[in-house]
């Protein structure tokens, strides 16, 4: 018996050794020195944009020495969650990650992103709009990511229903409110839009349009500016519409919302440049009925818009081949062929100015009846205001979900104002509790 026990123990040890040797993580850590250009390098890349792996294939064909493997993720939040956990654990992170702009301060605070200012990625500044570049440098000398795409907000609407009701496209928020009233009066089940408590990025974009910037840096201290005029103005505006009942109060991206898009009960959608992909996927049968227009404005003489979505390519601190990874990130987001492929395969709106101009010539298929689609979007992209994100965007966005869900359910204008106050309070308290200096 003792003998068999000992044999068992040896077998277990052997099995454990086999596990560690044969099946350790795929994080390309064993690829040797990055200085030798002929050394074959393996990079892993966590990304969630659909079909991004097809763009990466182009790179792999051209660069046999730097092979990139895409690990498809569930979306921006889960990918960042996993990266933060891997950083905490000290291993398990990929070399590259697709990071939304609002996640960069959080990732930098957790020491998850490598500084690329010493690599060729630093030479790409001229490719990108200044506001976008600021969000990957956080306004300092370091460079934490290469911008990939942006999501300038625009207004999609059902041209056929607008025509039937004799409505003109709203250019200001006052006109939007009137159009909403008219749509709902004509059909009590139809709405011009919905206030979604699930999409913090959507609300952030609209606050950005109104001139908000929720965080700020003041020397060694952070400031939180959520509960201020621009955001309050936006919240009260939507609270008023929801209270009147002229705007729906249910979240977007639910089966119910999809149905409403299909049946014409959602007549408009305030969304971003990537909207056609979602519309064609959820309501393919309505192709040819939608049109795009600039966002309704607060001040028609000073057009502006916000960003919803948009992401960058970052290199993690656990990468043993940061140089090669930076080279790939630079190619992916600034090389004309790569940007062209990004547009074609993933349907994003590239952050690269020149790339966007040359790649976005024909309107997306879902909008092929509107040849000036990308002109409208490009104009919008010029008018994106600047916005600073802080190190606890996750906390603020989570507070948005919970507080605005309550407000939307209550259908009271005052509840929307209270929700903004709660967001401010929760965000400040979290910063203070963690030990940040808050002004």
């Amino acid at each position, binding site marked *: 018996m*003792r003998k068999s026990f000992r044999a068992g123990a040896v077998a277990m040890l052997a099995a454990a050794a086999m596990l560690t040797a044969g099946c350790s993580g795929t994080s390309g850590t064993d690829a040797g020195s990055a200085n030798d250009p002929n050394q074959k390098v393996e990079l892993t890349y966590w990304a969630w944009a659909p079909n991004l792996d097809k763009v990466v294939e182009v790179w792999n064909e051209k660069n046999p020495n730097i092979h990139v493997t895409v690990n498809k993720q569930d979306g921006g939040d889960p990918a960042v969650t996993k990266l933060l956990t891997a950083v905490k654990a000290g291993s398990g992170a990929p070399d590259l990650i697709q990071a939304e702009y609002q996640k960069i*301060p959080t990732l930098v605070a957790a020491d998850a992103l490598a500084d690329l200012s010493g690599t060729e990625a630093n030479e790409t500044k001229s490719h990108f709009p200044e506001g976008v570049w600021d969000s990957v440098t956080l306004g300092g000398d370091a460079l934490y990511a290469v911008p990939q795409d942006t999501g300038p907000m625009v207004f999609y609407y059902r041209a056929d229903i607008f025509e039937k009701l004799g409505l003109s496209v709203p250019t200001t928020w006052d006109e939007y409110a009137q159009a909403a009233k008219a749509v709902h009066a004509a059909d009590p089940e139809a709405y011009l839009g919905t206030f979604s408590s699930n999409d913090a990025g959507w609300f952030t974009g609209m606050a950005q349009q109104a001139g908000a910037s929720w965080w700020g840096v003041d020397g060694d201290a952070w400031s939180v500016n959520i509960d201020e005029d621009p955001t309050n103005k936006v919240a009260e505006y939507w609270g008023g519409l929801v209270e009147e009942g002229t705007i729906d109060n249910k979240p977007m991206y639910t089966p119910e919302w999809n149905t*409403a898009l299909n049946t014409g*009960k959602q007549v408009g959608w305030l969304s971003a440049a990537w909207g056609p992909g979602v519309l064609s996927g959820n309501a393919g049968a309505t192709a040819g009925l939608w049109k795009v227009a600039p966002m309704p404005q607060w001040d028609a003489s000073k057009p502006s818009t916000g960003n919803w979505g948009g992401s960058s390519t970052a290199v993690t601190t656990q990468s043993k081949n940061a140089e090669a990874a930076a080279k790939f990130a630079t190619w992916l987001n600034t090389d004309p062929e790569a940007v062209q492929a990004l547009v074609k395969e993933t349907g994003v709106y590239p952050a690269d100015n020149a790339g966007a101009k040359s790649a976005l010539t024909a309107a997306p298929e879902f909008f092929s009846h509107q040849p000036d689609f990308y002109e409208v979007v490009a104009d919008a992209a010029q008018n994106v205001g600047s916005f600073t994100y802080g190190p606890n965007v996750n906390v603020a966005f*989570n507070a948005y979900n919970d507080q605005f*869900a309550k407000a*939307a359910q209550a259908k009271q204008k005052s509840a929307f104002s209270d929700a903004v106050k709660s967001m401010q309070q929760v965000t400040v308290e979290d910063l203070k509790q963690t030990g*940040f200096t808050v002004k």
Partner: protein
Amino acid sequence: MAMTVTKPGPAADTAAGPSRRAKNFKSRVLIPYAMLAPGIILFLVFMAAPIVYTLVLSFQKKKVSGLGLGKGSQSQVFAGFENYVSALTDPEFLGSVLRVLLYGLILIPLMLGFALLFALLLDSRRTRAGSFSRTAIFLPYAVPAVISSLLWGFLYLPGVSPFHFLARQFGVALPSLLDPNLVTFAICNIALWGGVGFNMIVMYTSLKAVPSEIYEAAKLDGCSEIQTALRIKIPIIAPSLVMTALFSMIATLQVFAEPTTLRPLANSLSTSWSPLMLVYRDAFTRNDVYSAAATSIVIAAATFIISFLFLRVVQKRAFGQEN
């Protein structure tokens, strides 16, 4: 004696033990421990060590200097009982506990009641279609909670639900089950759907273990089928009922997948609806494992205390005469 949890070592175990025969150390200690080794090692590595690790984390917190953006500007420092104090005084945590208690008060009687009813019906000689029904009722147990919540979500949303569609045809406006005052029932229904079959099978198995002679005798005494069920069958399977109740309570306190899947569909569920959702939010959305660890320990301790108290009470009431 179902209470092996608190009073191990029923007679059946010791009678067969080798203690009578083997006196030496090897067979008394080494052999059993060697055979238990795989279980013990796995338990230590994958359960005990993570729990200890959670305990360690629960006494730490994150400390930031300056803007917190550079390398090494964040560190882990000792926090004492700070995380526990803030967990126990957090109105969100207390709110989630109250919601889950209400949820359990609705769900457990319903689930066990229906499970018992179906088990008794299956056991009744006058019921037909037993095999079909047993399989059908048990089937949802095989559907992962993430998927079942998605299916029920489709059936709840007024815009896509067939129930609301049919009601509209008759001019009736049904309330949405996802409204704040009904959403607890919506989650109960998903848990009931997934759990009633499992509990039914547990009770049915116990019923079948009862010798049929007892029923024959009862019938000769003129007991009706219902009287037999109430006076003979239910008392006999009481230990099974206790165990299903206990495991249902533990599962209730850990409700997570159903509300998490339903949450994006409506405005009525917060990200801290249940205690485990709060833990998940702290650990993953807010990136604060330290608070999450403290809350986890509180939940585990509460689960343990509730289970223990429950067993004590039931043991006194139902099994007092046996001990």
